[in-house]
Every structure is written in C-alpha cells, then in structure tokens.
C-alpha cells in the first residue's frame, strides 16, 4: 500500500501545495513590479529594493528585531532544554502537573492574552519597556516550543548510554555534555531556529511588551500594511522570506550531514 499514490492522493497534494505556495510566489513576483499599483504589472524593476535601503525606520526596526531574536533564541534554547530534561529524565517531582501545564499552555494561549498579561506585569513592577521586555516576553513563549522539540528527541533516545556513562563514573554534567548533548543536538538546533523565527515573526506580543525605541520589524510592517499594500512591503517581505528559507535549508543540510557522518563513523 505504502509508496503507491492514488490519483486522489496526487490531486490532494498538488492542490494543497499550490494553495500553500502560490500566494507567497505572487507576493515575491510583485516585489519586482515597476508600477506602484500592486495589482497592475508594469514591467520588471528592482527599485523597491533600493528604496528599502533608504528607509531608516525600517532598517532600525530590522536591526532591533534581529538582536531580540538572537538573545531570545539563546535563552529559550537553554531554558527549554532544561525543561525538556526535567520532563523526561526526572520522573515525578513536586509540582510536575503545574509545570507541564505551564509548558503547554503558552503554545496555544491567544497572543493577545500573553501580551496583555506580560505588559501588566512589567507595569506592576515598574519595568521600563523596551528591548529587554520584548526579549523577556519572547523567551517565555518560545521556550515552550523548544521544550516540545527537544522532549520528542529525548523520549526516543536510548537511556542505557547515559546509564553506562554514569556507571563508569562520569558526573551528570559530563554525561550530559559527552553523551546526551551530541545525540539531541539536531533537536536543540531545531529548537534554537524555531525560537529565532517565532521571535522574528511576532507582532502581537511585541506590540504589548515593547516601548519607545524598540519598534520591531513586524510592528513597522503592520503599521504600513494598515495604510495600504505597497511594493516596498513586498520587497521587504521577499528579503525576509529568502533569508529564512536559506537558513532553514542550510540548517537541514547541516543536521543531515552530521547525522550521516555519525552513521558512517
């Protein structure tokens, strides 16, 4: 049965992927439109990409976003991996039910609630809003995604290797670094990328948690989208899409290579 696609399966896949990709391709195509009218094709042009280079507010926002995403991804990866280890290796500890609840709830929690609640926390403790509050907010919701990704890998992992290392006298830290970490590394890297992208992408939570001087790229794009569709936004989007796509493909190749080398060696 497996390996044979019926005509119905082929049609489902074709329509499904056409639906997923055509809007993005149209968006990219129209970023090269010479006409300012987005729905009329006025010939090929790269003028909108040059216009971007002179758009200072947009460039500032992009720089803030990348810094937030980078710090977020590092913190979220560390905390998320710790949470994954707690959930898979430490059995039943006190407060475990609450802990699993706090790990799974932020993933589905409507963003407006997460954003509002964090903002009210920052106001209650009199924390000035800016770069660090956005980062704190992003770490909180992205670490849960890291946890789930790493947890899936830890669950599938043969524990006898860790036990053997411990029996041979390795400390838990040493065991983690030389046995566990190499095996879960692809998942940790995937978690890092996921946290980075989610942070890069977030509009709602950043809008609540941000303050003066820390406007992120999605916030900037959102305010110009509200004013109308322009080829300049298409150009900015295309750059973002290309960056993320290249990043994901490179990461996939790197992990595939390291897995293959491990299997070969």
């Amino acid at each position, binding site marked *: 049965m497996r390996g044979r696609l019926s005509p119905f399966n082929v049609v489902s896949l074709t329509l499904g992927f056409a639906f997923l990709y055509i809007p993005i391709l149209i968006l990219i195509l129209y970023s090269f439109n010479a006409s300012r009218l987005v*729905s009329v094709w006025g010939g090929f042009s790269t003028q909108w990409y040059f216009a971007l280079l002179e758009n200072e507010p947009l460039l500032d926002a992009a720089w803030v976003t990348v810094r937030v995403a980078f710090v977020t991804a590092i913190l979220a990866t560390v905390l998320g991996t710790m949470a994954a280890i707690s959930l898979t290796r*430490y059995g039943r500890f006190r407060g475990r039910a609450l*802990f699993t609840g706090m790990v799974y709830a932020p993933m589905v929690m409507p963003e407006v609630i997460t954003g509002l609640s964090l903002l009210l926390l920052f106001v209650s403790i009199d924390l000035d809003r800016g770069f660090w509050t956005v980062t704190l907010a992003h770490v909180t919701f992205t670490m849960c995604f890291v946890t789930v990704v790493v947890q899936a890998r830890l669950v599938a992992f043969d524990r006898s290797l860790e036990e053997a290392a411990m029996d041979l006298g390795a400390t838990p830290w040493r065991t983690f670094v030389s046995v566990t970490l190499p095996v879960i590394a692809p998942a940790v890297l995937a978690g890092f990328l996921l946290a980075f992208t989610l942070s890069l992408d977030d509009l709602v939570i950043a809008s609540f948690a941000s303050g003066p001087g820390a406007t992120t790229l999605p916030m900037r794009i959102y305010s110009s989208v509200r004013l109308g569709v322009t080829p300049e936004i298409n150009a900015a989007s295309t750059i973002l899409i290309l960056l993320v796509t290249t990043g994901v493909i490179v990461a996939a190749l790197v992990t595939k290579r390291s897995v293959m080398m491990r299997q070969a060696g």
Partner: protein
Amino acid sequence: MARHTLRRDEPRRRGLGRKLVIGAPYLWLGAFFALPVLIVLKIALSYPELAQPPYGPTLDLAGGWAGFVAFLGELSFDNFAFIASDDLYVAALGSSLRIAASSTLMLLLVGYPIAYAMAKAPDGLRGILVAAVILPFWTSFLIRVYAWIGILRPEGLLNGFLVSIGVIDAPLTILNTEIAVHIGIVYTYLPFMVLPLYATLERMDDTLIEAAQDLGSTPLKAFWTITVPLSWPGIVAGSLLCFIPAVGEFVIPDLLGGSDTLMIGRILWSEFFSNRDWPLASAVAIVMLVVLVVPIVLFREAEARRMEESR
C-alpha cells in the same frame, strides 16, 4: 579510592544540578507566565483611573494586613457585569467561537487529504513533503496574511482571474468579509493541522486496512471504520492546536476582516490600545481564558499522551 569519594559525592551534586535544571525553567514560567495571568485577574477586578498606572485600587504593601483587606474591599466585578450586559462583547465572543469552529472544520477537511497522501507517499518523497509543509510556517505570519490582501481585493488577482475567464461579470467582495477571515485562518494554520494528522497516519499499520478489504469491506468503509478512529489522536491535537489560538486571533480579522468582523481578540486590542481601558481589556482576557480553559486542558492531556505513546 578516588572513585569511591566520587561516588559518595554524587547524590549531593546530582541533587543540586537537578534542582537547577528543574528550578530555572519552573521559576521563569512561574514569573512570566503564571504570575502575569494572576495580575490580569487582579486588574480585571479594578476600575480605570486617570493615573499611572491607569487603574485602581493599587495594592500598597506598606499598609500590611489591614491595607490588604481594604484593597480587597475595593475590588469589584463591575467589568464582568458590563461585559455580560453589553451586546458587543457577547456577540464578539460568540462570533469568535463560531469562526474558530468553522475554520477548524475547514482545516480538517483541507488538511486530512494532504496528510493522508503524505503518509502514503514513497519513503524518499515523504521527507521532502514534510519539509515543504513546514517551510511556509517559517515564513512570517504577518507576510502570509498580507499576501492575501493583494489577492482578495476587489481589483485584486483572484477577481481579475475570475472575470477574465468569465466565471463572474463583476468583482466579488471577498476582502473585509468573514470569508476572507476563514481563508486567512485556513491558510496560515494549515501546517498545524497537517503535521499532527500526518504523525498519526504515518505510524498506522496498513495491514489492518488490507485485512478489512480482504474481508469484503469497501475502501470508503475501511476508511471510516479503521483509518479515522486510529487517527483520532491526530485529529484532536490538530483541531485544538488550531481552534484555541483562532478564537483569540487578532491579525487575521484586523487585516482581512474589515470593520464588520467582530472577534474578541480585536476587541481586547482596541480596549487596550485605543480606549486605554486596561481593567476592561483584562476582564475580556479573563472571559476568553475561562472559555478556553477546557480546550487548553484537553490539549495538554492530548500532547502528554502523545509523548507517552512515542516512548
């Protein structure tokens, strides 16, 4: 000898590491997830004030126990009474639940055939298909919603296409309607539906279907009596993963739904940013949370069970 001392040290050292590994993420989530939700509850019970922060009463810890009691006395349920009595909020909550439910159903109808075909694909192709489903998810959510504005506008590409092939004479109004909101939700949430479905369908034992067909069952009957029940965990996980965030969705109704589409996430946003009524925005958040608590708990259980099963 060295080894002996090391062994004796181990439980203590292990205890410390363990405390740190559990403690750090636990405290983080407690401080930045659980505590903020409690603060929202507290502020939902306050009243708006022209002050900084723009609500009262404020809890003065210097007042001690008596101050705390006085603070409790000042809290009120006025915001909740207001929400319950005002048609706008009730209608917005109702239409959010309705739109989220119908979008989730559409996602299931669109996502199931895709996931099913992916699970049946040959080994080499399957990895590529999974990557191809995930890739759009890595592309900015905001950009993917924005892409649809250009397609759905009256002078947009879809209308231009339909008019040119003669299906319609005049452009249809799709943008700024609930139809556009449904399209936006189905489009952006599709990977969240397809991936859990694929995960359960991929693990399914094909011999069961073959056995049913050998015993004279039609393919359709075999699908309904075997495939669907066995993929139930994927259906539950995918549906909850889409339904819960869709109820509170802000960006999609705001950009595609126009001013007539009432959704609770948008109401919360405008109470907060436009009307600056923080207590009322908090009360809206609490109402949304109460409505979503059951699906959220179900989601947690479904995910925990999935983790146990893959062990």
